[in-house]
């Protein structure tokens, strides 16, 4: 790990000097992960590819701004999130700014009694597909809250919605995901029974 970090700092130093080879190494290393993150927000792979390329272009041309206070991946992810949110605001403005009244919060509360454990049998691809199937606002709020660890106040500010809208949207997103997980679980169990029978 220490060796990798050392090399990464060397690569970044060479990127600062304009080394295209170093840039390619970093691109090959991080582009798949950035695509993965972007695919959680966007449904179209082509849009995600465009954004990832834009993010790397920005990162390489402004690598002087990277001061090494965080990991390069963290810095890159931050650029990616900002870029993706801008893209969403520009292209999905209407869908993102649906405000929900406070009174809708109770309606949104799901009726979950037991904890679901699925991490062992759900694949990452299936997980991303489930997140991707959520409506754009729920998907975006869920991504920002769960994966990027934004607070509701930050989400509200970034998306131009109220905090309560953010909370309700998150609750609904969670409820939908749980439903999907349960359905998948049920489907898999049925399939197993059929195989056994």
């Amino acid at each position, binding site marked *: 790990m220490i060796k990798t970090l050392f090399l990464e700092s060397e690569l970044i130093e060479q990127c600062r000097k304009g080394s295209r080879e170093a840039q390619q190494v970093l691109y090959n290393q991080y582009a798949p992960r950035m695509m993965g993150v972007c695919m959680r927000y966007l449904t179209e792979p082509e849009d995600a590819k465009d954004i990832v390329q834009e993010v790397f272009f920005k990162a390489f*041309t402004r690598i002087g701004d990277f001061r090494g206070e965080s990991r390069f991946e963290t810095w890159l992810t931050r650029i990616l999130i900002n870029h993706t949110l801008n893209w969403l605001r520009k292209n999905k403005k209407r869908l993102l700014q649906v405000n929900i009244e406070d009174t809708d919060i109770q309606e949104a509360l799901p009726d979950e009694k037991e904890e679901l454990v699925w991490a062992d049998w759900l694949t990452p691809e299936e997980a991303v597909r489930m997140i991707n199937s959520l409506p754009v606002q729920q998907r975006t709020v869920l991504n920002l809250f769960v994966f990027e660890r934004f607070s509701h106040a930050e989400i509200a500010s970034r998306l131009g919605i109220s905090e309560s809208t953010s909370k309700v949207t998150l609750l609904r997103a969670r409820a939908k995901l749980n439903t999907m997980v349960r359905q998948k679980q049920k489907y898999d169990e049925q399939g197993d029974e059929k195989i056994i029978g």
Partner: protein
Amino acid sequence: MNKEMRRSSDEQWRELTRKFEAEVSHAEWTSLARRLDRHDRRRKTILRWGTFCVAVFALAFTGWLVWPQDSNPQGDTSQKVSQPAPVLQPRSSGPLTGPDFYTPDQVQAAEQQNVSDAVPFTRHGSMPGQVASAEFSVPFLFWEHAPVPFFHGDLTGITADPFPAHVSQVQGNTLAQRAATIRPRPRMGSTYLVMHVQPTWVNNRYQVPGSNDQTVHKQYSDIRQHQEQGSPGINAGISLNTPLWRGISVSGGLSVSTVTTQVNYNYTRAEVPVVDINTGVIAGYLSVGDSTVVEARHRNVQTYIETPVMFSWQFRSMGRFALDLGLGGSMMYLVGANTLQVDNKTLMVNDYQSPAAFNRWNTSLAGRIGLGMQLSQNWKASAAVQYQQILRNTDPSGASGRSTPSILGLRLALGYRLF
């Protein structure tokens, strides 16, 4: 769903998606690399034009600052041409006097002394021994060469390669393996900041117009012996070097040089003409007594600022070393007064001359051959032998002499890669 369950659920989602990576094709990288190349080219073009514009501005600004404002403020060019040049009038005997030279009192005072303790004086009353200082100290730009050897491999095993490595040279499956294939290598198109110092040896050639390459002692037969000597000088400056195409580069910066010329004379005349060896103007006459053989030594110290353009061609590269040829020219501006020393007494020759007859601007041609060495990815050094010939304009009166110093220098430069 309570808070604990939600937290656990979030953690499971994070854990799952952390492993998710989407495939990125090589075409995506190729597209990005092309875009970055375009961006780099655009940025470098802007920087080069910016450097050029700054150079032109600095040159114009320097010219505006240092142009002799008092030479002919009314712009009356006829005055320059028609102005007699009394200092060059052949004389038979007796002291030369007149409003353009000395007052009768001054001449009389000079005549009463011999050379060894002659009191130098100027028309404007400078004190004996006073050394003129530079009037201006302004930055200016000149073009300078610096070889840019391109290589790849590490610094102990380098092969010449004028082109950037192809992306396919990066190999390996892991980050460590791929990083290890990258070698430090200056990229084509690097611009360097170059600092240089150049000890020089100056040889002066003096010519009087119409004398068909005769030296001053033939024109003035009373001077028994005339000996020109080489003299040391120094040149130092800072410059920017940027490549143009293939191995050809152009550079510019700022530089200051000091040229010292020295001429020894033996005289038998009672009065010795004091000649400015650079302009050919007889600055005055010093009385040396009756028919005494007198040795007089003229030492002329001049400080120039230069604005040369230097194109260099790297014609051979051997690993980290490169040989290059440079050819350029320069404008040279004489800073401050033209100091002339006669037997350790300092005269300021400029003050003896008609302002219209004095030309501070020179042009020069320079050629050099140099050996450059890449010290590291960012640093390089070069050593070059440079020959510079100053082409002296005859002054506007058409009557003065002309000196054409040639300067042989060993130029030592250190460059740091900027971008």
